[in-house]
């Protein structure tokens, strides 16, 4: 095949994905950007170029607080999920016999098979004052009366971590399994302890997979509406919740769009911060 033929074939393969991205990402993004510069006067949408929605974001304390809450929850979820998922992925990759690894992975992602909303409501029941956890702690005498777990940030973080540990386990496992055992053997032969082998050999080599999973966790968590809405009990508001309030009754699409753009700016910063280690091909 000539170079020109190969080039045409390449274009043929790329075009569907390119058109898809343009239609369902670039165009909606441009519309959203334009919408964020429009204004709502009374109940009439006025197209134009105004920064009033961004000014409103800067002025209103509850919106700032929502950004802070979103960031705190997202960072907590990301760190806790990584700390739980790494050992789990390690055990599956290096401790579970090869013939059982597929089953172990299947079990690890089993909760994915249930509806996200149903899973969140299930957590609400588990964390309730008369739920399983409180009853268990009362039963063993750890507490004398039920404690409030549901409708708190703890509940939101728990629901998120349950979901994202599965995701991170997969990304980290995919990274670990690609490592040749010779790296560990070589480190041990050179006198490194188990911890030193992990710290100076395994961890740096698996960092791209960890960062990739953490970045996906960050992106999905900071934009999620369902979990904080169901499990958080509105004890504090995240940015997606504030966006939904703007849309629900008043249909304030301009302010909602500006909030979404601001959220996207945070995700972009997270990307820039993690770009050094980000390896999406490790997924």
């Amino acid at each position, binding site marked *: 095949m000539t170079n020109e033929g190969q080039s045409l074939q390449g274009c043929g393969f790329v075009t569907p994905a390119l058109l898809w991205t343009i239609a369902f990402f670039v165009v909606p*993004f441009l519309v959203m950007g334009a919408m964020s510069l429009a204004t709502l006067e009374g109940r009439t949408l006025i197209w134009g170029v105004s920064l009033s929605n961004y000014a409103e974001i800067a002025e209103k304390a509850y919106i700032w607080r929502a950004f802070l809450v979103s960031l705190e929850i997202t960072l907590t979820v990301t760190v806790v999920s990584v700390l739980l998922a790494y050992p789990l992925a390690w055990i599956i990759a290096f401790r579970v016999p090869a013939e059982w690894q597929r089953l172990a992975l299947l079990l690890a992602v089993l909760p994915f098979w249930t509806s996200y909303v149903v899973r969140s409501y299930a957590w609400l029941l588990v964390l*309730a*004052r008369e739920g399983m956890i409180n009853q268990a702690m009362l039963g063993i005498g750890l507490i004398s009366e039920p404690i409030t777990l*549901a409708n708190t940030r703890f509940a939101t973080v728990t629901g998120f971590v349950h979901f994202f540990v599965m995701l991170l386990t997969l990304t980290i496992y995919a990274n670990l399994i690609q490592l040749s055992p010779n790296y560990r053997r070589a480190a041990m032969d050179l006198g490194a302890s188990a911890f030193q082998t992990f710290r100076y050999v395994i961890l740096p080599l698996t960092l791209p997979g960890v960062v990739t999973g953490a970045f996906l966790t960050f992106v999905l968590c900071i934009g999620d509406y369902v979990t904080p809405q169901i499990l958080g009990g509105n004890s504090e508001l995240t940015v997606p919740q*504030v966006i939904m309030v703007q849309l629900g009754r*008043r249909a304030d699409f301009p302010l909602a769009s500006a909030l979404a753009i601001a959220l996207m700016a945070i995700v972009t910063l997270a990307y820039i911060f993690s770009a050094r280690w980000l390896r999406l091909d490790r997924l």
Partner: protein
Amino acid sequence: MTRLSALFLTTSALSVSASAVLAEGELNALVWCDHTDPALIEPFEAEHNVKVNLREYEGTGAALALLEQSRPGDWDVLVIDGIDVFRAVEANMLAPLDTSALPMDDFFPEVVMEENNTIDGVTYAVTEKFGYNTISYNSEKVDEADMQSLATVWSEKYSGRISIYDYYLPVMGLAAIAGNVATAEIGSGDLPAIGETLSTLRSRSASVAGVVAAQTALATGEVDIVVGGGEWLTAVLAEEQPELTWTIPEEGAVRWAQSIGVVEGSENPDLAMEFIKYIISAEGQARLATSSCFWGMPANAKAGDVLTDMQKDVLRWDSQPDYLALTQLYPAPDADLDIEMQDLWLETLQQ
């Protein structure tokens, strides 16, 4: 989330639009969840040999956005919060309704609500269901005498045992009533006092919850009181947990009402009208009142001939004259006041 919402709205409109074009004898209705009960819809479909396509929505803003993004003729029927009928009319989304063919004389007079449904002498919608945003509670866990006054409902005594219904208009209406401000009279000057009441209520509540979460919280004992609840929250649980009940305190409560009308430009206006006739007939009203999603009082009093005694007991049928006299309609703020009220609500939630 905004992109997702917009995409969702657009694809919803496109998909229903496509089905409307392909299928004759179909009716497309934008509704609240109580209309999705097959027990309500299937008899109409069977009688008229049509398919009713139902799309649930939450919040008038979402419904109006969806209608704006649709082509004329995509939608036939709209169920809407009674206080927002004027918004749909302003946006030219509701067609005039010929009420001469409807049993308006059978309605409870207080819920005909021409002030909501009729604009400049033209009727665009009729009330189909109403109820109360008031106090739901577990009668085995609270002193029922305390539930008869808003002051004692959210007193220190019940701190941490309260959930607040997650919709700012009725809850702020209740806060206004607690401060002797009529819901129809709420203005910017009243908001600081309403905000103080909300702050007190918020500080003593365990959660601010939507319909399902509030029901779950009450049913599982997570909380014992739902401020803003009512028959719509506890009626579906009455059979299994009769201790979950509701009352209207002596200060009064907020009354909600939903209206139904034909969408401007409907390609099936006659069928849409037949649907409205069915919904407000005695049989349709009884089914709508006891929908599996949520119960509420039918606007047509003749539904009482169809409902069972047990159902009427749960709806407090015989107490309606007192309740109607004691309650006030939802606050219906103009656009500017609406923004102020919503900001106050969000500030309170973030405290």
